[in-house]
């Protein structure tokens, strides 16, 4: 097993090992260790590091880097990610791949410094103006985070879309043992421009056939939905109730499921790893006589619960009750999830759908 490492450092190092040649970012708690780490590490490796004047400038630098064909990334937290959305939408418009790491903090506007999952809707729906999506990957531990960073870059390049590593404050700040991947070669994509004008067929936004592009994009997203859903699951075949949770809430929920089962209740779990595409396929494995689904979330309104409802509408019996344990912020403890499950089981809590 690898050495102990802090979450944000692990993510930054993993990106460099995946061949990232360019980073631009702006400090914000709880993601700051990423920009700090890279300020030393990237020059050491001969890569390009820029501390930009703002999140908006950082993402526009990433635009220039991706247009140059370089493997590139930025990182921020919630409100900082908000400022990047114009650029992320522009990247989508130009089919330019990139990675953005969102070490989320709970809350609206400036928000808090608490760990939370209040950016689910924003990150899974594209986030800026327009009609696009990014692949959103959410780890529940540091080894998984490190592994997903490399995957995120590869998927972004493969499908010519953006990738978001959607993690959270506690995961960025905690330490765990981690095996780091080997260094991969730094190389430019062939479609990048460098001034020599060998790529003559680049389409200008002013002359593009927008209808054709939109249809092509939709088709590409359908392929991503078909091929790239990822999740972890347990005990779905006999489950009376299925708990759905991602990130650190997902990790806690998996522990709670073991405890609840030990007391004789048949519960299963689905832990989405791709938040977009949402792992709809996981639901096809669930016991047809399941009595209910329970979304466990670190926000107050319940956000992912809507995706569970849409999935059931599409693939399953949409009249199955769907509950939501929305804990506002902070990682819900296994004990708390267990207690609240027992209240649901006793008919004390009302379903959302």
């Amino acid at each position, binding site marked *: 097993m690898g050495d102990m490492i802090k979450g944000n450092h692990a993510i930054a190092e993993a990106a460099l090992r995946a061949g990232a040649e360019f980073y631009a970012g702006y400090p914000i708690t709880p993601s700051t260790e990423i920009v700090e780490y890279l300020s030393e590490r990237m020059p050491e490796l001969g890569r390009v590091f820029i501390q930009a004047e703002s999140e908006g400038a950082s993402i526009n630098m990433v635009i220039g880097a991706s247009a140059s064909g370089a493997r590139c990334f930025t990182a921020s937290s919630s409100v900082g990610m908000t400022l990047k959305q114009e650029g992320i939408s522009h990247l989508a418009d130009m089919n330019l791949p990139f990675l953005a790491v969102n070490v989320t903090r709970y809350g609206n506007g400036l928000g808090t410094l608490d760990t939370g999952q209040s950016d689910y809707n924003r990150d899974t729906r594209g986030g800026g103006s327009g009609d696009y999506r990014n692949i959103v990957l959410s780890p529940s531990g540091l080894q998984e985070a490190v592994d997903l960073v490399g995957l995120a870059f590869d998927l972004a390049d493969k499908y010519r879309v953006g990738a978001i590593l959607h993690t959270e404050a506690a995961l960025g700040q905690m330490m765990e043992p981690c095996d780091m991947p080997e260094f991969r070669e730094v190389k430019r994509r062939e479609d990048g421009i460098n001034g020599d004008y060998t790529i003559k067929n680049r389409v200008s936004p*002013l002359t593009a056939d927008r209808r054709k592009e939109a249809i092509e994009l939709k088709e590409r997203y359908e392929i991503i939905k078909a091929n790239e859903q990822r999740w972890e699951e347990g005990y779905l075949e006999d489950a009376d109730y299925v708990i759905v949770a991602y990130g650190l809430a997902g990790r806690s929920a998996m522990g709670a499921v073991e405890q609840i089962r030990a007391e004789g209740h048949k519960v299963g779990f689905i832990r989405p790893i791709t938040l977009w595409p949402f792992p709809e396929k996981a639901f096809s494995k669930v016991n047809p006589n399941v009595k209910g689904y329970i979304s466990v979330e670190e926000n107050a309104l319940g956000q992912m619960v809507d995706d569970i409802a849409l999935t059931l509408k599409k693939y399953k019996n949409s009249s199955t009750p769907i509950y939501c344990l929305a804990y506002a912020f902070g990682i819900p403890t296994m004990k708390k999830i267990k207690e609240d499950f027992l209240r649901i089981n006793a008919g004390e809590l009302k379903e959302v759908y």
Partner: protein
Amino acid sequence: MAKKRKLPEMLGKQISFCPGCGHGVVVRLIAECIEELGQTNNVIWNIGVGCYSLASIGINADKFDSLHGKASATSTAFKKLNPDTLIISYQGDGDAYNIGIGESISTAYRNENITVITVNNTNYGMTGGQMSATTLPGQMTTTSPKGRDCATTGMPIKFPELVATQFPNAAYVARGSVTSPANVNKLKKYIKNAFEAQLNNEGYSLVEVLSPCPTNWGMTPLQSHDRVDNEIMTYYPLGEFKKREVK
């Protein structure tokens, strides 16, 4: 005897600006300088958002369409990853000095080795002539219908002067105009100096161009050129504000 100017190779298709507009002259001069410096296959035109966005259709060279105001940031990345390529940010006064002032100042302040060309026509041309950071005192625009009131909207910004006086590392800063053959020739020298500074890794270079916008000023092309000479130049003097250091 007047020299006949050859159309640069990279300007193939027609670009449609209004009659009397300065953008066409600026695009042409940039292309001539690129060609004369032997950089035709070593340049990225990074274009902002304004009437000049149309230029991207007519330029046969590597080019990129940046977001409104953000070309200096994208140019920064282009240069870092392509250090031997000539990187040009083509922007307007609204693009570079209003929405993009943060990126413009920060790029100059970091002394990025790129060239920014800002075409200053004292308004937002593309959206129909609203007030910009360079609209002159008293100038009527669609958002200053009674004339710009500098008591409430501030005085027009002088970005080249700001860069030249506050950022001592900047390599080259000048302001030119397109209003007479003499001015056009001088402007071409400024642009070429800026490109040479970049190609020699001397640092940030900036050329602002005073440019008529007859359509939004409600003037004929000739009247609009007179306005540049008689009115705008009294507030925005031409010249080199920071010369290249002879090394």
